[in-house]
């Protein structure tokens, strides 16, 4: 078995504009996904929107600067993740295809193992 991180990228504008009913339906879809794949899921979280993000990086003089906003501005922003266990990439992709998304998609990354 190997560990993979499924990163969920979605359009925050679509999320923000969703009404109560569809927001609830989306949440229910995630619960259903969690129930269906419980054995494989090792952890999961949803993130507060990128408006709340703070980035820290080095400026040219080597000083750490703290700025408002996500590290990279994109239309589809990282909005949550699932940590899963799968036998191989095909199995990980099969699980990742079931992750509910609004308007974006997901990225599957193997977790690095150090021996």
């Amino acid at each position: 078995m190997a560990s993979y991180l499924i990163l969920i990228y979605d359009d925050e504008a679509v999320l923000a504009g969703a009404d109560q009913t569809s927001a609830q339906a989306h949440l229910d879809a995630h619960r259903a996904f969690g129930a269906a794949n419980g054995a494989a899921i090792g952890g999961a979280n949803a993130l507060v929107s990128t408006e709340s993000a703070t980035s820290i990086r080095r400026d040219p003089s080597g000083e750490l600067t703290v700025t408002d906003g996500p590290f990279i501005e994109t239309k589809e922003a990282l909005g949550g993740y699932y940590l899963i266990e799968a036998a191989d990439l095909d199995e990980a992709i099969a699980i990742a295809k079931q992750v509910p998304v609004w308007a974006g998609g997901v990225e599957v990354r193997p977790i690095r193992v150090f021996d």
Partner: protein
Amino acid sequence: MAGSPLAAAIAEAHRREWAFVLAATVRVTRDLDLAEECVQDAYARALESWARSGIPERPGAWLTTVARRRALDLRRRSARLARSLPLLLDDPYEPEEEPPHEVADDRLRLIFTCCHPALAPDAQVALTLRLVCGLSTTEVARAFLVSETTMAARITRAKKKIAAARIPYRVPGAEELPARTDAVLSVVHLVFTTGHTAPAGDRLVRQDLVERALDLARMLRSLLASDREVAGLLALILLTNARSATRVSAEGELLLLADQDRARWDQQAIAEGREMVREALRRRPPGRFALMAAIAAVHAEAASFEQTAWREIVALYDLLGEIWPSPVVALNRAAAIGLADGPAAGLAALDALAAEPRLATYRYLAAARADFLRRLGRGAEARGAYQEALLLTENAVERAFLADRLEALDASLRAPG
């Protein structure tokens, strides 16, 4: 020893058995690089051993046994190998239990791993040529006109991803199989089209790539015998390649379909291709390769260019456009309309595509427009279209053809009356 029976036997075994030997060895090593080393080593040993003891009755079995024995030795010796098993197998392999003459045919696993959708398309093609066809990195680089360094990096990166992301060494299940098979066929088709009309360079055809594509299609046909699209792709390659001897004149000039000597088309390939088309078209609805092959069959069956069943070709392009909408299909359809209904109708159909951004830099659109304009007597516009086509063409043989057409047009424009 070049030209000797031994050299010929090794070359033959390399072409026919490489995929089988490598696929069987990956089972033992579970590592593509190491498996490649072991197989290369087996071919090197064959050179000595076969010179001494004669060419074995079944060279593939001999090579597989030697390559796997080497892999086993290395596996026993290396603790690293025992620890890291980057390639997954459905079934754990116990080498001692398997007598060599019953080695499972793992070629499909190898092909599906090379053409996994998680790999970039250019990496899929490179890996297939390297691992399934056994081409050296130098040869693959030359085929795609990139530097050896670039190609080596591309192949290394793809192999690393297979290991790191754990792309399985497996034939996909029934549910995934059609889509995954289509990905494999796309790779083989790309190898073929790259060979059939080289995107750049001095030669129109890269026959080596065409041969590899044909080998791959035949291999798939033997391994996935019930898949109609596999039959379709094999038919397409056979029927298109049947014209290869007549596409360039003795002087190296490009000859269009209209000017080719049909008596010199490969009738054996056409017969085999037509049989494959019939089988491929039994799928309902027919797939894209079956339809492309059917179009090639209509050309192959026509006694002359003029007697070609252009309306049937237009109808086949209509079907193809429905299941595989692509600007290139639309362009070919428009060209066929021009031949069925005259250059004015063809030009109208082409102009309907002018807004398609993916055709803006496509040399055959400009070339087809130029031809219809010329036949309509609109010389000045034809001239502009030929010049545009020339700007977009990098194959030397195609360039020479367009330059000739332009020159002939200029001569006719200068001629009085």
